[in-house]
């Protein structure tokens, strides 16, 4: 099931929330676990077994690691950590990378190696990373052993973040898992966040994604310059509004059940450098790799050579995490290149740039980077980049600049593109926050990321009547519009099936 469906919003969600609040506290985690299994199994009834295997594996490994540590037997603890890591990566490799490895190896030795051709279970890259984090956290002493299988199952399968993140590391949620307190305050913030995330996904991402589909369907090497740039811009906004909208919905849904998930996006397109971009884009993935790969490898503290190696390893893995094919590896290395340049060569210079220059540079790098992300074949990547550079075949006159399709698409999607750009900059959210300074920084803005939990402490203040009314009207309108767009969901893709 996906959040952006009528089935989820109007059947699954009200039933789950209703049962959840009717249930006594000790039944709430088991209930969430059960609901999450139904949520996952809806589209993929069989693949639920893989998730249960991963859950069982780490539940046991966590127990054994905890016991070994308590007995002071570090080697045994390390063994069980290894079992968890090998087991989870084994699942991931089998179901996600087997075909890729078989094809690549086959090409290398010149013999066809049979590929198993397994379908990728949705969300496997998210939940294997989460279950692993538990065993690792227990080993590192960052979290206590979870003795209740149903509670642990609720953590792994928790439907709000199951299929598209954020990736919640166990120690971040351990407290909430057993001792959370649901509140009106938190639930209301959750509803707001849910509506905003839903609108980002359904109203902005799906619409602008349709524009990108029009461009993507053409020969990538034969586009007029403006069309090529328009296309990749449309994709950049599609994936940002889609992905961050999903995260907003996840965080909002978590709030509804009393959970506080980490933020996943912080206006990444206003980053002033690539280093900054990756602190703002898919934050929980970056954090996961930093915590469990980069730092254990020695991070930046083991000399420049090891530092460079660690960066390359992490970014190759980050690239491959996004999909099992060469273009994603290339995409990861592309970012490694800019990060290395920023860290080793221009560290000082970049910090002295005026912010607008940094923003322009970072956005340009990211925009070009989406090309090898979206096209899997070298031909498509090279062709599209050539079109962007003006070698799309139309020459350097007006014919090479734009054609009728360009003008038509710009006319059809220009307003949406401008609104998306404005929303992604974070400016409307800042305006609205200033407007309703007396109260929560939450509103009908098309893009609003952080609703910091600290910001929820507005208890004593009396909000003005007009801001409350405006917010209510805005939010209800957005929700109705999103519903209308879902009823006629002729274009409602799920972008993370390759993750």
């Amino acid at each position, binding site marked *: *099931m996906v959040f952006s*469906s*009528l*089935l989820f*919003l*109007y*059947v699954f*969600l*009200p039933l789950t929330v209703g049962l959840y609040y009717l249930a006594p506290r000790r039944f709430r985690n088991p209930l969430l676990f059960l609901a999450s299994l139904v949520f996952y*199994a*809806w*589209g*993929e*009834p*069989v693949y639920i077994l893989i998730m249960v295997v991963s859950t069982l594996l780490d539940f046991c490994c966590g127990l054994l690691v905890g016991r070994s540590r308590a007995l002071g037997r570090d080697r045994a603890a390390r063994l069980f950590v290894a079992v968890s890591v090998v087991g989870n990566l084994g699942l991931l490799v089998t179901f996600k990378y087997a075909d890729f490895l078989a094809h690549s190896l086959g090409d290398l030795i010149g013999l066809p190696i049979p590929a198993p051709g397994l379908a990728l279970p949705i969300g496997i890259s998210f939940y294997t990373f989460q279950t692993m984090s538990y065993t690792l956290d227990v080993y590192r002493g960052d979290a206590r052993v979870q003795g209740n299988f149903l509670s642990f199952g609720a953590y792994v399968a928790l439907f709000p973040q199951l299929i598209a993140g954020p990736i919640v590391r166990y120690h971040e949620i351990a407290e909430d898992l057993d001792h959370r307190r649901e509140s*009106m*305050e938190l*639930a*209301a*913030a*959750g*509803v*707001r966040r849910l*509506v905003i995330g839903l609108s980002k996904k359904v109203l902005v991402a799906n*619409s602008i994604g*349709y524009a990108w589909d029009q461009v993507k369907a053409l020969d990538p090497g034969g586009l007029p310059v403006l069309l090529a740039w328009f296309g990749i811009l449309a994709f950049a906004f599609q994936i940002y509004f889609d992905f961050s909208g999903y995260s907003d919905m996840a965080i909002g849904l978590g709030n509804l059940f009393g959970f506080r998930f980490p933020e996943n996006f912080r206006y990444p397109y206003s980053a002033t450098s690539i280093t900054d971009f990756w602190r703002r884009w898919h934050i929980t993935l970056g954090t996961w790799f930093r915590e469990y790969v980069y730092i254990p490898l020695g991070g930046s503290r083991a000399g420049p050579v090891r530092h460079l190696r660690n960066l390359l390893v992490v970014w190759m893995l980050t690239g491959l995490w996004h999909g099992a094919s060469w273009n994603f590896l290339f995409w990861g290395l592309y970012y490694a290149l800019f990060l290395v340049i920023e860290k080793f060569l221009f560290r000082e210079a970049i910090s002295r740039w005026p912010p607008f220059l940094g923003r322009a540079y970072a956005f340009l790098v990211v925009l070009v980077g989406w090309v090898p992300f979206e096209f899997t074949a070298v031909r498509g990547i090279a062709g599209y980049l050539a079109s962007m550079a003006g070698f799309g075949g139309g020459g350097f006159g007006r014919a090479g600049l734009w*054609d*009728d*399709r360009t*003008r*038509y698409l710009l*006319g*059809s*999607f*220009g*307003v*949406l593109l401008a609104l998306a750009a404005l929303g992604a900059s974070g400016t409307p959210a800042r305006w609205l926050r200033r407007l309703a300074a007396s*109260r*929560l920084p939450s509103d009908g803005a098309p893009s609003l990321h952080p609703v910091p939990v600290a910001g929820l402490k*507005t208890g004593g203040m009396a*909000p003005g009547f007009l801001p*409350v*009314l405006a*917010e*209510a009207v*805005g*939010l*209800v309108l957005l*929700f*109705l*519009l999103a*519903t*209308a*767009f*879902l*009823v*006629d*969901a*002729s*274009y409602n893709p799920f972008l993370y099936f390759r993750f």
Partner: protein
Amino acid sequence: MFRHAAAVFVALVLSLLAVLNVLQADRSFSEHENRYLQEFPAFSLERLVSGTFGREFDQYIQDQFPFRDRWIALKTLAERAAGRRDNGRIYFGRDGFLLVMDPESDPDRLARNSEALRQLLATLMTRHPGLSASILLVPTAPEVRPDLLPPHAPVPSPEFVAESVRSLLGCETPGAVGPGSCSVVDLLSALRTAAAGPDAPSLYYRTDHHWTTAGAFEAYRAWARAAGIQPSERDDFEIRPVSDRFFGTTWSSAHVLSLPPDRIDAWTAPWQDGLEIRVQDGPWGPGSLYHPEFLGKKDQYAYFLGGNQASVDIRTGAGTGRTLLLIRDSYANSVVPFLVRHFDRLLVLDPRHLNVPVDRYLDGLPDFEPTDFLFLARASSFGRNSEFGRLAGGAGS
């Protein structure tokens, strides 16, 4: 509580719709969208495990959502307000015209369809030397009237299909296909000429992809000129509206709130009476080219010839000594009333609905001796639909 008015209102709206969704009765057919809606899916363990039940249930909720048509209209409204000039299926054209967005043709498919057509023609000309064959590839409204499209709307080249077929068939070269004459009529130019000028009639419906009776008449005249037949004049007909509440297929895909309906005209003449008609395997009997019973239904265009029958055999009192084999799609249904004047017998076949290829079907009619052949179908369909491979048994898909 007041501080959370926004969240409370959203929750109320959501709950209300969720409850309505459960309470309201299911519909099985959407008149508006002209399609069957998903009803509560059948349950079995097998369907559950395979995921079929889940997918159908998802569709069920989507199709049966309360006020479905009005939500979709709201979406269209919002999209158009934001500057969209199409909805992915339909261009919102000038003067209230809803125009189909035709995808590019598929050159492979077009080549295979043309080959099937060429084989059928070759077979027919061998059997019936002297056959006079015409091919009418029907352009769509935006091809005839590009001025109706939103500015800069990208459309496939309107000449592409007809010109490809012309060169693939090679039938302008005498004897190339067989012992007979054959021509691919330049229908696009003929219709463009007819549509030009301030007093020109509307050749296409605004809310349907078909041509109007006036459009069908112009196509008939273009065919007659090419076939060397003296065509009827406009004054030969009594023209009267039979429906002024026609909302066609493009209207169903467009979901616009307010748009005036189309009018359907019938052009009648005495020679259209007293016909003997046989539909598919039914008996011969007196029949009509017009089917008023469809005027009360959604698909009012089926008023002409009763829709897309696989085979309609017509005997007239024309006394011209000529017999027509008409291979067609629905565009021909409103042309047939003009054609009946010139033939003693017309066999009208739809290759998409026959259960055997056209040449095999004709093998079963040894006493059928056509003197004329007409292929009439929408050009863009011929450029990409596999069903036209069924023109000849050995060719196509």
